């Protein structure tokens, strides 16, 4: 029963903590602050060997309260964090890092930079080695801020490049930012992890200074090193880089192929399909069909007229050439049970027609081929289209009618 009449120091602090937690869960910041005021005493007996001792609790709880309480200010927050830094040397860099994040979230970029620089210069015996990871992160985030400065300088130069403007100091500043940023960005992306923002910035710097080889190597490492976690963005960045530098279709395709494998619903699948459709190689065109069908399996693509036009184009091409109808049959086989309800219901026909004529046109073509001219979707849309005397719908109707036996071949 909770109505114990005994009480000791440890128990009362445990109970206090549970009150704080309840208050925080209910967003009652005043009440949480009230109980925290009683809880801080536990610092005076920080003999606990448990992982989360009072000082870490107080740091985290205090931060939450100060973030949300309406009366707290940045000044108060900073003063609180400075105290927290002195509380636990094992946590020093972590607190510095989170402090910097908080400052950034509040738009205090200069202060964040100062904090990070200060933290960088911290040394504390063997702790320095133990907290090596945090130190790398601190340097990395400072590098990001250096990159940010670099961008600013670059923009200044671009704006005033032509006037008799004192470019030299700005240039020098810019290059200095680059050097500071580059060395630390390079360091952090060596560690297996997800470093999207850091990679992008680093590549941006390298490209600007013309070091394309280094940039390509960085992106390849990031995308293909098996030690790094599978990250679709890595492949996107690589693809974008290759495209920017006019690399061969082959390399572009191989970059996007992996993306298709990991994230079949990725927005780049449209580009991928477009590229593949144009290919002379049969295998690539086959892949293109697979890619676009796979993308349209996802609810997020249902209303994407561009995607449907890709599929429609390829289906039309195949049907017209009367070659490789088996490709459509293969793709349709696993979808014929659920695509009709998913994409081609009568409700969707009405809605698509009302909201987006082009979308309904493309879908109608696909429906007409896959489900035949008597399917609900095609019938409704083509009827509406012809009624509205839109030319392409008449053409569509003729086309589907002409190729109606196809439906029988692929549905069997």
């Amino acid at each position, binding site marked *: *029963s*909770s*109505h*114990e*009449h*005994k*009480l*000791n*120091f*440890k128990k*009362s602090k445990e*109970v*206090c903590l*549970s*009150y704080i937690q309840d208050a925080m869960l209910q967003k009652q*910041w*005043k*009440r949480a*602050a*009230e*109980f*925290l*005021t*009683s809880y*801080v*005493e536990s*610092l*005076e007996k*920080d003999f606990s060997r448990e992982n989360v001792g009072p000082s870490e609790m*107080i740091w985290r709880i*205090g931060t939450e*309260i*100060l973030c949300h*309480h309406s*009366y*707290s200010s940045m000044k*108060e927050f900073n*003063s*609180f964090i400075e*105290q927290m830094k*002195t*509380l636990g040397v094992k946590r020093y860099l972590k607190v510095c890092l989170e402090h910097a994040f908080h400052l950034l979230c509040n738009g205090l970029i200069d202060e964040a930079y100062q904090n990070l620089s200060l933290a960088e210069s911290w040394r504390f015996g063997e702790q320095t080695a133990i907290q090596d990871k945090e130190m790398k992160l601190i340097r990395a985030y400072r590098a990001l801020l250096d990159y940010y400065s670099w961008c600013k300088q670059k923009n200044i130069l671009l704006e005033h490049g032509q006037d008799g403007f004192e470019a030299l100091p700005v240039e020098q500043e810019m290059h200095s930012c680059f050097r500071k940023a580059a060395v630390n960005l390079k360091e952090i992306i060596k560690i297996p992890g997800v470093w999207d923002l850091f990679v992008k910035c680093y590549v941006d710097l390298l490209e600007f200074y013309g070091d394309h080889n280094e940039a390509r190597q960085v992106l390849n490492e990031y995308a293909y090193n098996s030690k790094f976690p599978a990250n679709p963005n890595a492949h996107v960045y690589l693809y974008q880089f290759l495209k920017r530098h006019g690399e061969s279709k082959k390399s572009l395709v191989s970059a996007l192929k992996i993306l298709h494998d990991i994230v079949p619903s990725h927005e780049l699948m449209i580009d991928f399909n477009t590229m593949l459709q144009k290919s002379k190689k049969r295998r690539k065109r086959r892949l293109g069909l697979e890619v676009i069908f796979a993308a349209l399996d996802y609810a997020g693509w249902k209303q994407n007229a561009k995607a449907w036009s890709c599929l429609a184009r390829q289906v039309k091409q195949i049907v017209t050439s009367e070659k490789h109808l088996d490709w459509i049959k293969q793709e349709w086989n696993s979808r014929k049970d659920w695509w009709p309800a998913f994409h081609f219901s009568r409700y969707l026909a009405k809605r698509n027609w009302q909201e987006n004529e082009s979308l309904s046109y493309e879908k109608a073509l696909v429906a007409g081929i896959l489900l035949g001219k008597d399917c609900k979707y095609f019938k409704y849309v083509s009827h509406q289209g012809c009624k509205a005397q839109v030319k392409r719908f008449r053409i569509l109707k003729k086309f589907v009618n002409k190729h109606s036996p196809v439906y029988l071949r692929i549905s069997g």
Partner: protein
Amino acid sequence: ESTSACSGSVDGSLYLMKNQKEKLRMTMPMTLSFCYMALLWLREPMTLSDLLRFVVEGHIPYLNVFQHFPEKMKLYGLDLKIFCVESWPVYEEVYNKMLELAVFLDLPRFPDITDSCFLHPDILCMKYLMEANLPDELHNWTCRVVKKVCIGEADFLTLVPGNKSTRKVKYDVLAAAVIVVVLKLLFLLDDYYEWLLSDFAEERNKNNKEGGPYFEFKKWYKVIKCSLDVKQKKLDEERAKYLWRCEKPLFYSAEKKSKVLKKRQMVVNLQNQFGKLAGSVRPVEKPNPSSFQLSWSEENTDGSCFHGHSLEGILQEKCGLLTAMNPDYWLGTDKLCTEKLCGHLAHYREMDFPQSYHFVLRLFSFLLRIQPSYIHDEVCVIEHKLFNKKLWRNMKYNTGLRK
């Protein structure tokens, strides 16, 4: 000034050595045993539960008493283990130590507790009845029970140190238990009968125009539950917010001093910072110590005071006397356990007993700041004394006991 952690008072380490267990050692809780012993000797109107409550509420120096020591008395090293208080005093511990102390000091029989003393069950029951907002008329019944089981006698109530044959009396628990027994006698408290009686009293109240209202258990229950819940919640929060440290921190040695002072400073800073965010101003002055935790006034027009209510609603006339309508009784336990074996005379588990019974125990548990099981133990003892003859007779004829 020595700097090792093992220094401090000259005999500090000796004091804490294990083989000293046989002898009586002075501890902080024992200072309270001393106080209580003195209060008992003087027959002051303060029970042990009152005393301990005042300590917890901060009216009696105990928690950080070293703050009040003269400057010259510096505590460090093992002194800290002796003087540093990190738990609330426990009733049982203080009481038992008091008994040991009385023996150790070779004290004679204490001054008699007579029926004009505050600690006498007749007086104490009156006080608790008032506090529990129960009708004054119940006092007649408590006196009857007290008389019947002979617990109002000076020989029973007075402490004789060293006399192992008599069971030692906890006056506050005893008085509370008597009231609980009376409530069981009149209302049965089996989660059924008391409500039935209450409805009956309510009916009779409708036709009752002259005189005071009849006592209705249901109404009383609602009022008390409401107040008790509020008070209990407040008490729970106070437990969570309890502060143990003071401005003058303790430290093991001079080396640790600066670290301890720095921590103290940080705690004060944080308390100020978050105290401001807490909004409401913390009351600077403690309320004065009060013997009564709950008070009820007959001047309240909302009818929330039951002192003047009449028990007639639940009594019946038999042979010119008013007796309880309730013919039944259930015992808290078939057989009393031996305290020496398991520390308890009975074994209380909330789920084994009716909720009304638990409610009543809870009420007194709150007032006395002790576990309900202690009151239950005492209730069982009184019951067994009360129904002694009947018990023996029933057992003999094997009719079984109602429970």
